[in-house]
């Protein structure tokens, strides 16, 4: 693992996946990752995210929306964990109730944040990713 003065290390080796059916959120979070020099892919629903992993994608961190058509974030997170995926999965949702948040976390998330994310929040999540 590379070290160096930056806690993010060699960020160009980090790969991310943004899973959201909202094109505005996808564009916003893409721009944030781009500003941090992170490579990323996009999926418009949970099924696309699962299919990416099945096709062998190597992803360090997933930003998973909760509500999406075809396969929502909870279902996708459960599926990925059942497949043995150990990537960091960050739930991103505008659902505010503790109950909804807890239900999403219990699906297998590492973290859950309100959308939209901020660059600072993403940066803190990326620190310490081992690759």
């Amino acid at each position, binding site marked *: 693992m590379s070290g160096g003065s930056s806690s993010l290390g060699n960020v160009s080796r980090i790969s991310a996946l943004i899973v959201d059916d*909202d094109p505005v*959120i996808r564009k916003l979070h893409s721009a944030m990752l781009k500003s941090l020099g992170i490579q990323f892919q996009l999926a418009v629903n949970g099924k696309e995210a699962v299919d990416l992993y099945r096709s062998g994608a190597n992803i360090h961190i997933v930003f998973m929306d909760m509500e999406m058509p075809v396969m929502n974030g909870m279902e996708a997170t459960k599926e990925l964990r059942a497949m043995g995926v150990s990537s960091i999965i960050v739930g991103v949702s505008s659902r505010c109730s503790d109950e909804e948040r807890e239900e999403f976390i219990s699906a297998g998330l590492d973290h859950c944040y309100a959308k939209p994310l901020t660059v600072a929040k993403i940066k803190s999540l990326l620190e310490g990713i081992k690759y």
Partner: protein
Amino acid sequence: MDRNHLLRQVAYMKNSLFDQGYLDREQFTQLEELQDDANPNFVEEIVTLYYNDSARLIQNMEQTLVNRPIDFVRLEEILHQFKGSSSSIGAKKVNDACTQLKEYCSAENTEGCSRTLQLVKQEHAVLRTRLETYFQMVREAG
């Protein structure tokens, strides 16, 4: 009109949008911070994307209120997505109107939903006009 004057006008217009509650200062500033040489028109692009996508969501919400029986669950789902998008660009008054609509939706109050959806549409349209003028000024300032 010299560039400095135009830049001052741009700043004035932006501060007016914040002070009058149309835009959330923190969120809109975050959009501007993502704009750079590689993405010189990012703010205008994401706002344009928002208006293109949100028109569809508003239409879908209107349709739910026309159908009988009214599917308030579906209305809330669409509203939820619309509110998420609106938050992303810092559309503060739009979001406030959405909060009101959500309350009427939860109460399954048809008349309240119809009335507040009109308010959402109104705030959505007013912000669009204000932002179009703002971006025009930004382009003129160079």
